[in-house]
């Protein structure tokens, strides 16, 4: 949900694409980056920059101010994520570097803050969930996209998105219970 201040500001300055672009970056760079991380995209930082660079040419024809920019941004990010997985399917399998198995590694401050050194990282919460569940959780929780926009991005109806969200949360709860029981 956007702050009324931002909405008011963007209503007044809709004609300046550079200003809208700057506001969009400052507001949505974090959620876009988090969405791409949650979806397991390689090098999410550079993909985030690409998403914003793809947004800029469309700002002149964009309507809806910052809220419209948000919907468009996550549509672009979703498309980039789909492209990433398609590209990965075409490339041969490679063995990923597993930092947890590397004895030379010491946990960073970020890892310690997020509890990654204890065995489970934030992005690993969504591991082993079906792809639809991961997508709806990434859009609804990480990116804070509304049900309507999530339905538009995923190409589903709002009811289907709500149902999918409920199932995804149930699966996540089971995983949390399982993890707390075993750890």
């Amino acid at each position, binding site marked *: *949900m956007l702050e009324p201040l931002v909405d008011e500001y963007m209503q007044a300055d809709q004609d300046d694409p550079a*200003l809208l672009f*700057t*506001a969009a970056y400052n507001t949505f*760079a*974090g959620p876009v980056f988090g*969405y791409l991380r949650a979806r397991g995209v390689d090098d999410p930082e550079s993909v985030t*920059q690409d998403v914003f660079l793809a947004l800029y040419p469309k700002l002149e024809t964009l309507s809806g101010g910052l809220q419209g920019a948000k919907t468009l941004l996550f549509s672009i990010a979703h498309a980039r994520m789909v492209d990433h997985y398609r590209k990965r399917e075409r490339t041969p399998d490679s063995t990923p570097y597993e930092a947890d198995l590397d004895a030379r590694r010491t946990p960073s401050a970020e890892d310690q803050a997020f509890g990654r050194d204890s065995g489970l990282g934030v992005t690993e919460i969504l591991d082993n969930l079906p792809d639809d569940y991961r997508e709806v959780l990434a859009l609804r929780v990480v990116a804070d996209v509304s049900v309507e926009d999530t339905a538009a991005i995923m190409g589903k109806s709002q009811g289907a998105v709500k149902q999918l*969200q409920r199932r995804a949360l149930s699966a996540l709860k089971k995983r949390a219970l399982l993890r707390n029981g075993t750890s």
Partner: protein
Amino acid sequence: MSEHPTPRGPHQQRAVDQLLADSGFTGDDELRTELLELRSLASTAPLPSEAVRALMAGSPTADTQPLAATQPLTTTAGPSASSRTPTSVLTSVPPDSVAPDTVPVPDSVARRRKKRRAAIAGLAVAVSLAGGATAAVASEGGLPGAFQHLGAAIGSVVSQLNPGPGDAPHPGTPAGTTPEPLPVQEAPQQAPGTVQPQPGPAETAGPAVPATEPRPGVGPSNSSKAPASKEPGKGVISAPPELPVTPPGTDASKLGPSKLDPSKLGPSGVPVPVPSALVPSLPAAKDLPGKP
């Protein structure tokens, strides 16, 4: 690329609570914790790259609002959001930003500048040519003089580029007239290494006597031929040096059947050694043993 975390406030907790309530999981602390952890992924934003920064700083409005450049905008109830002023939006890059000269220029502007530069260069060349032509007209005293000067200049350039058989017009010759060819000394071409037959005693002495070879640069034939063939651009192509095909001291033209008559050839003055005793003499018969 570095990242900077954005403050995590009660707005995120409210959003998670609302999501849980919509899905029928109200009061589920375990799930709430998981969702808050997930949501923390969005709290870290990467710094803008150079390209993104150029788009942000490239707008002219960024220069007009310098005070707003350092205040980040957050959607939470942070200090910048509570200021309630439109200038709280970040309109340019954070402190470790680009220098003004490193801001990339859009392609259209660069293309326009390049076209303008080419037009200015062409105009400068045309003006300088016109000035040169005017000076030539003034110095030569009229239009014919200018044409003559122009022709001479073109001819000199052509002769420099192509120093072949063509003759370049000289500035002294009038325009429109064919310059007279310079007199070229027609002399038999002869390379310095060509063997010259020696008249006089060599002929009378016969082929057995070796003739002396003339040295290059010595004698009347070499000194008179050299300057004519050394002038460049006169249409005189110097002949390649002839290789000696006859042995030294002999002239092929003079060795023909019409000039050489074997019957007229006399003995040379070289003394020929005559053997004193070719056949040993037989001993006298009376000295032979067994003969009475």
